């Protein structure tokens, strides 16, 4: 740490001498481990220790940025020169400020010390067991696509010349398995994952079973006739779609005419059943943090409350433009990116009905258990989506024949408006800079293309 503080002082001094007014360091470092097993052997093993440092500062009234992965004194000049060159070329109207820090921050703990103490042999045994279990559960499982355990630790420091000096650290373990089922000429795949920072929560049997069930249950799947179907969007599929549309809640996108929620504040944009929460303090919320990437204290909020759009997500710049306070949603996906906007732990508030009840009440229709093609078949600007999907027909209130080779299409806002019931089974996707979750949703209808 002594070296880091020296480097920081050197950077701040060099920046000041070069005529940069306020300057901020964003530093992150971490370690990563990834173990891949194939046919009982450790087929891939990855170990990393890495760091990076970004500089942000005001030069001649504009914000400049730069970064380096060579974190030592030889980079100081490079960082300062790049920052100035970049600041000189900014000509946007909205001003970005460096934050002096808040008096108080909530306590958020995303670091589980016990994870750091798990022996490597335990991790290796876990992932080997996962593969073995997945292969043994059913004769029709012929191979394993991926069988992985990984964990990592990361620490971020934000420190600036206006007095802000904060630090955040977190760790996380993840595991996933992809299985391939074969029956005759037919091939189906299944996938399951689990994320936690408590190693004791990882149960290889549960994860293997989920992946195997998914693959086996799809054997015999066929396409169905095109048309409108009453739909249940299972929690994981619903969370995936919500995640892909996250950018529509960004005030930056709204202000730049790039969001379909422009001019929709305080309007009804979804069914009354929908309340969308952004909760940075959620227990086991892997995007939890007491402060955002500008050092602004985070807040819990209902983005949508009973169908009405309450707020957009703001950082300091967009809040200043709208004349309100930041919602604490400034984000940087890494030191390589400038300040943007992202939710923290964002989820649709669960209702009280079990998935089985939703299926029974639907009587006839289709349950969608997986969607693919989210980065291409979905347009966050128009809200339109057309996604490759799989699932099961629902007949007389029960899950029946597996269905694949279909697409589901609609418009995100229309779909939110058509939500008839919200399940109790809240589930989150894989964490990135945000952690997005949803319960299963029963939707009046969506367009299905198939035969």
């Amino acid at each position: 740490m002594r070296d880091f503080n020296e480097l920081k002082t050197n950077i701040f001094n060099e920046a000041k001498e070069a005529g940069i007014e306020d300057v901020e360091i964003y530093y992150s470092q971490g370690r990563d481990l990834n173990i891949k097993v194939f046919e009982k052997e450790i087929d891939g093993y990855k170990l990393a220790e890495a760091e990076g440092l970004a500089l942000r500062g005001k030069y001649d009234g504009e914000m400049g940025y730069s970064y380096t992965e060579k974190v030592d004194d030889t980079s100081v000049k490079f960082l300062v020169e790049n920052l100035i060159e970049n600041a000189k070329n900014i000509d946007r109207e909205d001003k970005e400020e460096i934050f002096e820090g808040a008096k108080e921050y909530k306590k958020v703990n995303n670091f589980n010390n016990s994870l750091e103490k798990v022996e490597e042999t335990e991790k290796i045994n876990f992932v080997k067991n996962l593969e073995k279990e997945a292969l043994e559960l059913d004769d029709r499982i012929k191979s394993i696509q991926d069988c992985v355990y990984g964990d990592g630790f990361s620490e971020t420091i934000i420190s600036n010349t206006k007095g802000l000096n904060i630090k955040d650290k977190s760790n996380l373990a993840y595991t996933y398995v992809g299985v391939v089922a074969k029956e005759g000429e037919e091939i189906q795949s299944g996938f399951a994952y689990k994320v936690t920072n408590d190693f004791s929560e990882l149960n290889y049997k549960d994860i293997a079973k989920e992946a195997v069930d998914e693959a086996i249950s799809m054997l015999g799947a066929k396409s169905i006739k095109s048309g409108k179907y009453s739909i249940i969007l299972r929690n994981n599929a619903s969370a995936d779609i919500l995640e892909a549309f996250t950018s529509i809640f960004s005030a930056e996108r709204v202000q730049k005419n790039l969001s379909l929620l422009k001019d929709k504040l305080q309007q009804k944009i979804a069914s009354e059943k929908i309340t969308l929460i952004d909760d940075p303090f959620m227990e086991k919320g892997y995007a939890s943090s007491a402060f955002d990437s500008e050092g602004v204290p985070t807040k819990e909020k209902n983005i949508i409350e009973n169908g009405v759009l309450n707020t957009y997500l703001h950082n300091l710049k967009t809040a200043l433009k709208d004349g309100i306070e930041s919602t604490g949603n400034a984000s940087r996906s890494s030191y390589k990116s400038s300040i943007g906007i992202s939710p923290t732990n964002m989820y649709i508030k669960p209702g009280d009905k079990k998935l089985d009840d939703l299926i029974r009440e639907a009587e006839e229709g289709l349950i969608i258990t997986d969607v693919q093609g989210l980065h291409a078949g979905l347009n966050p600007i128009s809200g339109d989506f057309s996604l490759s999907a799989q699932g099961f027909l629902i007949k007389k209130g029960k899950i029946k024949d597996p269905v694949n080779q279909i697409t589901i299409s609609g418009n995100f806002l229309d779909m939110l408006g058509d939500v008839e019931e919200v399940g109790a089974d809240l589930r989150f996707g894989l964490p990135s800079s945000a952690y997005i979750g949803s319960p299963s949703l029963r939707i009046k209808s969506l367009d299905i293309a198939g035969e």
Partner: protein
Amino acid sequence: MINKKIIENVIEAALSTGGDFAEVFIEDKKGIGINMISGKTENIMSGRDFGIGIRIFKDFNSVYAYTNKSDEETLIQTAKKASKALLGSNDIKDIVINNIKHENKHIIEINPTEIPTKKKIEAMKRAYISAKEFDELISQVTVNYQDYNQKIAVANSDGLYVEDERTRGRIAIGAVATKNGEMQSGGSAPGAHKGFELIEDLDIEWHGREASRIAKTMVNAEYSPSGKMPVIIHNGFGGVIFHEACGHGLEATSVAKGNSVFADKINQQVASKIVTAVDDGTLKNEWGSSNIDDEGNPTQKNILIENGILKGYMIDKLNGRRMKMEATGSSRRQSYKYSPTSRMTNTYIANGESKFEDIIANTEKGLFAKYMGGGSVNPATGEFNFAVMEGYLVENGVVKKPVRGATLIGKGSDILKKIDMVGDNLSFGQGMCGSSSGSVPANVGQPTIRVSEITVGGRE
């Protein structure tokens, strides 16, 4: 980039627990990204990526470690830590590496890191103006620019030491058209393995207008019909269909472990006889080209499918061991943070004999996908999906009204057999391809092709 004696010592340390192959990858990359909205620069980020990756093999197993530090002590420690994952005899080898020089096939005329940012922004403003002024329906225009210069060195226990330099640039224009409160988008994003001459030689205004033309066409379009129908996929970025639907299944990453529908199918008919498909990392200054791959082998032209017969895969060193086949210069990685594996470079369907006009004229009823969006595939099942960015209905041999929101789904192995016309107008489009070794620049390409039947997911 790092003293050779140090590299030799690191390789020796990496092999100290009985590994049978070790490799050091050094990367030093400088680049800039500029983001413009409404003709104003919003964000500019520039910086330096720097790190070292160490890879060790023992039989079919591999270990990878990386660090940002380049001092000998850290590197040797990193190598030793990594080597502990391989249990084997304590074995001391004496490694000597020799510099192998290769000819630089991709000449860079103007080093972009020496061009003032102002000049890059001027080019972006031209793109903005041409797109914005295209039509009054255009409500927003975004322009993103990036360039970088990546220096790499690869050394390994076979005695190889080789360096390479990759300079790439790209400008991406996105236009939004708004009509009656409804928004649709269009885009154009040319890029190449070139210096700033890419921008100087580019008809930027054409790309700006093209982005806006697509957005305007789509905001005026009705929803696409659904169901199975013949689909004509235009040249250039249309090649994404081969990339996703078949290309990924031809990467050793999925073939070696039998997780591909194309495994064990060499010399078998996998496509219609008029299909020849190639992956060529040597194409001069193309987006996906480089002199050597990321494990130090020269890139090469690999014939994947010839007249419908499967001829080869894209193979990296590790998977090559499992498959008992030679590496094909196809090993790539996003950065030192990734262990490399077999990936596509510039992948395309070769020219056929049909004229574009004849393909349209011969189609009674179907969809013409003029520009494709992206897509993805499940390599195990071969099931793919693609978005059509700009589509039209074809009726009685004539291109009719535009349609929006179409998605194409199917299985790669089926689609290849259903290609019934291949045009003579091969061109390329640029994309970023994401897979286990990260996101790498990849060209896709094809002439206009017709597939006799694909499931189109629309809303009507």
